[in-house]
């Protein structure tokens, strides 16, 4: 699914990722943990194609293709999804319109027909119900006036509608209460399938109680310094990152 090899990458002018390696197979869930500023978001942004994040060497292969050569919208249509750590607000553009535009743009890229608005509405209402979120979110402008938790849930809702093959979730659990955390975890678990993969960036092992990861990696200073199973997350919770850094 995803093969990150010896990646060095800059955010702006600063080198952030230093020899990053990660291999994700279909159906796997990988958790990425690591101290603030270690480059977790930079990794997510690099995969999704944020313009000011640039790889200086190394390669990223996604489903056999050179991911770094693709525009952000192409990556999306090929099934890459990034749930943002800080979702943006778009005044005056309602969620429903935004999502339908995104959904149909992806279909167009793949050579599929537009879904008509009635069918789209049915599908979207079904998904929103599954996520225990209220319908009126659809009519509101994208993230405007949403609470922190609602913004995060909106990211999960977008993921549920767009049904990506590779979802990167950047601290989607931060700032969520226990109920919302469950909703987010449900959203992921409902989508879990043998041909879909997740990279979940988090600071808290509690999310991993709900979403069982196959692997846990620790990113320190732009590099994965340790990989293990869920047990590693528990150790990190108890001991912090200090013992890994030296």
């Amino acid at each position: 699914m995803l093969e990150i090899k010896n990646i060095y990458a800059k955010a702006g002018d600063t080198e952030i990722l230093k020899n990053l390696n990660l291999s994700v197979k279909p159906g796997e869930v990988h958790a990425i943990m690591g101290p603030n500023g270690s480059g977790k978001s930079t990794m997510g942004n690099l995969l999704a194609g944020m313009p000011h994040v640039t790889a200086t060497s190394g390669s990223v292969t996604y489903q056999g293709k050179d991911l770094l050569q693709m525009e952000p919208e192409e990556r999306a249509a090929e099934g890459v999804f990034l749930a943002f750590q800080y979702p943006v607000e778009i005044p005056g553009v309602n969620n429903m319109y935004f999502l339908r535009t995104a959904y149909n743009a992806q279909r167009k890229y793949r050579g599929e027909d537009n879904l008509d608005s009635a069918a789209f509405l049915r599908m979207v209402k079904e998904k929103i119900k599954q996520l225990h979120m209220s319908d009126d979110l659809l009519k509101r402008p994208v993230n405007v006036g949403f609470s922190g938790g609602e913004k995060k849930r909106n990211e999960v809702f977008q993921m549920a509608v767009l049904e990506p093959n590779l979802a990167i979730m950047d601290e989607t659990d931060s700032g969520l209460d226990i109920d919302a955390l469950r909703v987010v975890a449900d959203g992921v678990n409902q989508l879990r399938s043998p041909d879909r993969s997740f990279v979940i960036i988090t600071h808290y092992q509690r999310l991993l109680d709900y979403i069982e990861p196959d692997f846990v990696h620790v990113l320190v200073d732009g590099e994965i310094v340790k990989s293990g199973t869920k047990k590693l997350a528990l150790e990190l919770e108890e001991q912090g990152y200090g013992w890994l850094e030296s």
Partner: protein
Amino acid sequence: MAGLKVDWLAAAYQPATEVRWPDWMQAKKQAALATLSTLPGPSRKLELWRYSDADRLQKSELDSAANTERELTTADNAVVINLTTQGVDFDRNLPDWLSLKPIQELPENQWLDMDLSPALAKELVVQSLNQGLFTHGVVVDVSAQAPQDATVVLRYDVAEFNRWTYLRNVINIEKNAAVTIDEHYVTGRINVVNNYRVAQNARLTRHQHNVLHAGQQHVSLQHFTLAENAYVESQNRHESGNLQHHIHWVDFTAEQAEYRSGSVNKAGHNSHIADIVLINHAFKNNISDVTHRSLADDSAQIFNNAKAVVAKGADGSEITQDLKNILLSGDAKIASKPELEVYTDEVVAAHGSTIGALDENVLFFLRSRGIGLEQAKAIMMVSFEQEAIIC
């Protein structure tokens, strides 16, 4: 340089049949021409023409194309007034709440002189020419009997596209009346002055829809006088065209009135758009609130100016000026200037102006959801404009 009068008379359209002006109106016209003929033509030396190429006013061979018309109004109680090359045209079967007459039948006490004092006449020279050269127009009287959705559409549809057509209208909104006036540009090289007289407790909702072709030009002065407790909300859309130069002039003539306006200015190619607001807070306790959202692409130029003057003793005035601008290309230019001139103590004022580019983070967010670059930009522009849509 040739005198102003000579240039402009030649460029102005004159109807085949001479209108019979009342003596007092004829005198006003002549006085204006006499004053203006002593002035130099408009140029970048003028504050209000610094960012517009005034030479374009004299350009010949403009664009004959008419704009595709959008639906004018959906209101049941709507009257459409066509301002054409020949004159003013409307359905004679008017509702009780509305009366219309040609501009030459305007009562003298309803006439509003252009300010021809030396400093102002210079700045407003192009709009002031209207007083000397207007050939037709309409006087609109809206009474308090106007129903809830009462709407009057002023449709500018002048076939003469090379020479300037000067139109002058007076819109009286009587005490306690409420009405929507939609000004809709279709075609023509139009210089229009509208005097909106909004009486006590009256309410005006106004929309100006100026979406021009690349070769079209439009100049206007919208003058509003607001009596006690009058309320005006004014929505302007100025898009494209070779040249658009609009002045919105507001005079409060009593207390407790409110003027709110929102403007979307959108210029591409080689378009020059000026959107100028001047508000005189001459009395206490009036509110003005001006929001502009402007987008310039290619080598277009936009000039935004919102100026409020608060007279001595006009305490309790509340003023908001919010101008935001986006440059979509390296060659585009925007000048944006909120101005406050305050001669009294107790005023609440907030003003701000920003010029930037489209927010990269939002653009990336949209693209990361599969929306292509151009469509993502279009969505962001709609989002940006939205803040200036007030009615």
